[in-house]
């Protein structure tokens, strides 16, 4: 298994750079991962990442649709916050595995 160093701590990641152990993640690490993706984190980023992490922890599927039902932001804002591939980028920065859903 690969390792990367974020915020001075070694963490386990897969070959695509996704955390394999979400409990190793901290907000300080998120800043550095976001930088790799060209994103500067704001309070909105953290709020939706918290939603994604909570959903992951409770075993609910992560879909683009669930963002609209998050009560945090709508999908349009989500695309603006994480330009390009929002769900992939957001989960990577939030330290959780890449979503396995097609929607």
């Amino acid at each position, binding site marked *: 298994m690969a390792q990367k160093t974020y915020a001075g701590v070694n963490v386990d990641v897969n070959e695509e750079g996704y955390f394999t152990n979400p409990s190793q993640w901290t907000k300080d690490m998120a800043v550095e991962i976001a930088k790799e993706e060209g994103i500067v984190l704001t309070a909105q980023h953290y709020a939706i990442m918290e939603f994604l992490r909570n959903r992951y922890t409770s075993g609910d*599927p992560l*879909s683009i*649709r669930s963002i*609209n039902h998050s009560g945090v932001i*709508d999908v349009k804002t989500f*695309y603006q916050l994480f330009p390009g*591939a929002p*769900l*992939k980028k957001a989960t990577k920065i939030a330290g959780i595995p890449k979503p396995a859903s097609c*929607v």
Partner: protein
Amino acid sequence: MEQKFPIKKVSLICAKGAIEDVYASLIMANGAVMEGIETNLFFTFFGMDAIIKTRMDKLHTSVVGNPAMRLPGGMRMPSLLGILPGMESLGSIMMKNEMNKLDIPPVSEFLDLITAGGGKIYACKTAVDMFKLKREDMSEHVSGILTIGEFYEHAGGEGAQIIFT
């Protein structure tokens, strides 16, 4: 060094109006948008039902003449059963329920998601004329009514693909 040729743009054509035809297009279009791929979704002929406001969330699947149609439990559904009143509605409702469990949204909501991510929805000029449709019959997410020539203009570019579902 290995050369890579990523898909940068997809233009999908949806020409049929059964649930599975429309959802094949919608899932592929939404999936492309989610990957950051520039996406056009072009509806024509019976696929137009997916962008007609009064019809989009009432699509059906065919239970007659569909050799892959199965009953709950996996047994093949005899075609003759399909002609019974209500069978098509029942089959369609069951299919939508199963999709909902997978977080696959109704058509109207799917169009919201695709366009929220920058995907573009178009209607076919020929189909609009043929079915005598008006702009106000169609979803507000439809960005335009295109001739086939205009569709090809929109579809061009490096790493671009056209997909007929």
